[in-house]
């Protein structure tokens, strides 16, 4: 995507794009992606991806509770699986629909308070450093936390700024009314 596209996108989207880019880079991964949980249907909605598969996937929905991301979203616990290609029947449908069949998946939940609002997933992290499983999961947890905090701040900002704006408008209105009252008085 070009920088101009990036500026057009919402802050949320830019944040999530940035998160997946950082995650992909940090792990030397084939791809990183982030899903958000639809609060009404509890489906997982593909929000951003870096690497294999691309932005045309954004908006794709997956049923709640399916696959690794689904389990992570339902349980609130991170998870790492390897050797997926050796498994004869790893969720091939979902994997093929994303255009890339990974050998390993690492996924961590995004929390807002005590609710899981999304999942950060890394596909095929680089294998240069062996036996780093738990450290990798710990780092992914930290990245997921940062993404979740960013989203929460944006949500709060959107919730509070209109009312503040209207407060200001009300204050201006009151001041104007007072001035008018003085001139009439």
């Amino acid at each position, binding site marked *: 995507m070009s920088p101009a596209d990036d500026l057009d996108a919402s802050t949320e989207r830019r944040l999530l794009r940035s998160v997946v880019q950082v995650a992909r880079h940090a792990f030397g991964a084939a791809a990183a992606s982030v899903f958000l949980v639809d609060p*009404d*249907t*509890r489906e997982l909605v593909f929000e951003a991806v870096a690497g294999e598969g691309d932005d045309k996937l954004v908006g794709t929905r997956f*049923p*709640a*509770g*399916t*696959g*690794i991301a*689904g*389990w992570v979203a*339902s*349980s*609130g*616990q*991170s*998870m*790492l*699986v*390897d*050797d*997926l290609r*050796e*498994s*004869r*029947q*790893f*969720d091939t449908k979902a994997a093929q629909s994303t255009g890339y069949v990974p050998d390993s998946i690492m996924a961590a939940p995004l*929390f807002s308070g*005590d*609710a899981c609002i999304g999942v950060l997933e890394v596909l095929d992290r680089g294998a240069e450093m062996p*036996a*780093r*499983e*738990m*450290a990798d*999961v*710990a*780092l992914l*947890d*930290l990245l997921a*936390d940062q993404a979740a905090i960013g989203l929460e701040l944006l949500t709060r900002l959107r919730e509070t700024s209109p009312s503040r704006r209207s407060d200001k408008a009300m204050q201006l209105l009151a001041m104007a009314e007072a001035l008018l009252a003085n001139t009439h008085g």
Partner: protein
Amino acid sequence: MSPGPDAPTRPATPGAAPAASAVPTESAAPAEAEPVAPPWRGGAHRHVVGVPAYGARTSGGGSGEFPLADLPGVGPAWAWGGADGAGVRVCVVDSGVEGGHPLVGEVDRSVTVVDREDGTVGIADCPPTDVAGHGTACAGVIRAIAPGVSLSSARVLTDGKNGSGDALLAGLSWAVEEGFDVVNLSLATTRQALAASLHELADRAYFRRCTLVVSAHNRPVPSFPWSFASVVSVASHDEDGPMTYYYNPAPPVEFHARGVRVPVAWPGGGTIRSTGNSFAAPHIAGLCALVLSKHPWLTPAQLKTVLFQCAANVAHRTGGAHEPGR
């Protein structure tokens, strides 16, 4: 693993600078102003005092030795030598279990949480299937440790709209009431509103001789029920032995079992390698089944004592700590 990357995220250990400097020091040695803890007592986490326990990271390698345990005759050979778990009923409360998987075998009872019309949740029998794969993985670990157990499944992670909290309570409650000897719960909830109900349920299980083996949440958020004293809580170590486990000198998580690159069953008959505390808990659940198949009269408290006694870092009469347990 290297402790480096996650070191800054760990909670401060006792005696760390902020705590020490907050207390006026009277003795000449400010760093050792606090009473010296006996060697078998691990450091207390700052966050467990009076508040729900937080997450527990994976232990790298073994823990410190425990030289004081001395129950003559109680060791791995006594506890589970020759046992296969026969006669013990284990329930996996998770995403379901795929029956007939080569690593899982037969699933004796399979139920799922269902949404009732009045908005509450109920329990209904269902075919032994697993859309997420996680429960199947846990069941396979238990079967590998204790081939003779009777395995059942309660699916609480559903695709319904009900909060997973209600489903968790319903499924766990069912498993306790059904009188399973061991319940594996590789799940945690972060919802404070559920803490009291889960606590009551964990105590009920404890007094009904139903041992809850629960995986510790792996991140620093308050979560339940692994942090309760009435359950057997498990986090991961990074070694390869399926029977190798350690007692953790710094609870609330009490045991560390294999949880890194564990070969586990995956739906469709396959096998993958998976990492997480989720897969450490079923190792201990399987061990509990082995012990109970030889010593069915053990209460959960006695069972936990046996687990402590046989942990790889607790010295038993055959020799020092850190020797192969079997």
